[in-house]
């Protein structure tokens, strides 16, 4: 009996190591693509759930490349007035008892059960089939209930008229907005701007991918490394998870 168990274990180890060797071409390079552009005319599918894994150990203290990239990509104002929209912000945390300091980016957590969607009176706040939580600004009346409902303070209200619009990211005064996971880029098969900027800065703290795909890099990481969601006790099941909180 014990022989059989050992045999199975050995077989399992040899098979998995062969599988990993097959997937990885070189360290850090994987054989499979993590995302594909969706063909024109095809709707977002619930077979996919986009999410992120943020490694706070990799996140640079004082680095705000992700914030800069987000502002640039989405045409957000860079002059810092108290009423300016923030789609992503850097948070520095310090544990008083040990003095341990960590830094992490905070943005819309793209919950599976989003409270912002529950409270919206006009159905402007909605969750797309692939898990991205968005505001339909054609419907938004600017009541800001969603901003009150969000436990992560992820949403912003546009107080001032928008003068210099981005072609890919319409924004307007009197509506609520938040991180869209760069939905236009994701639909093209690209990564969100913050992920790209973080990798470019050499931190690689943000991993983006399909949580439902058992072969995706993010799925493999989440399965092998201890990660946690923010305020998991609320049962919102955010699509963003953190390592090293």
């Amino acid at each position, binding site marked *: 009996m014990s022989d059989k168990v050992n045999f199975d274990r050995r077989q399992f180890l040899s098979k998995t190591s062969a599988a990993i060797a097959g997937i990885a071409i070189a360290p850090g390079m994987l054989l499979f693509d993590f995302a594909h552009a969706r063909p024109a005319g095809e709707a977002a599918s619930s077979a996919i759930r986009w999410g992120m894994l943020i490694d706070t150990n990799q996140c640079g203290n004082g680095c705000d490349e992700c914030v800069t990239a987000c502002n640039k990509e989405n045409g957000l104002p860079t002059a810092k007035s108290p009423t300016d929209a923030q789609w992503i912000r850097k948070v520095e945390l310090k544990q008083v008892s040990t003095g341990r300091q960590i830094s992490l980016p905070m943005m819309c957590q793209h919950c599976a059960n989003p409270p912002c969607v529950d409270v919206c009176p006009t159905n402007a706040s909605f969750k797309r089939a692939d898990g991205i939580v968005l505001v339909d600004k054609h419907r938004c009346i600017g009541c800001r209930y969603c901003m009150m409902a969000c436990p992560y303070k992820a949403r912003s209200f546009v107080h001032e008229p*928008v003068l210099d619009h981005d072609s890919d990211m319409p924004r307007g*005064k009197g509506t609520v907005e938040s991180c869209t996971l760069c939905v236009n880029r994701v639909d093209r098969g690209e990564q969100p701007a913050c992920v790209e900027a973080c990798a470019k800065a050499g931190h690689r703290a943000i991993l983006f991918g399909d949580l439902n795909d058992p072969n995706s890099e993010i799925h493999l990481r989440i399965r092998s490394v201890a990660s946690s969601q923010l305020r998991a006790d609320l049962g919102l099941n955010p699509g963003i998870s953190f390592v090293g909180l």
Partner: protein
Amino acid sequence: MLILLLAAAPVWAGSSIAPKLDIGKGGQCVDDPKFMRKNHMQMILHQRDETMRQGIRGGKFSLAACVDCHASKKDNNVLGSNEHFCQGCHEFAAVKIDCFECHSSKRKIIAETSK
């Protein structure tokens, strides 16, 4: 009567009461100009919800494509004066135009480079 008609004809033919528009690049539109003039506001209404809420991309009609063709060659904008394509006609018809409160009124390449 005949004289009256003849006198009236050039007024309509020369369309002196229609706005004089800078049509930008112009060229082949997605549909007949007469049809577009009357129905352009309906064409992207249904599609915008599909794109926004279901993520269906690459439809036949697109506001960005309207702007891309019809933005003035001088300043790459569909707004600015009563000669600009969108503003000119909307001013003439006294209809408020809401699209560009949120959407870009500039040709995409220009909007990208000025980012």
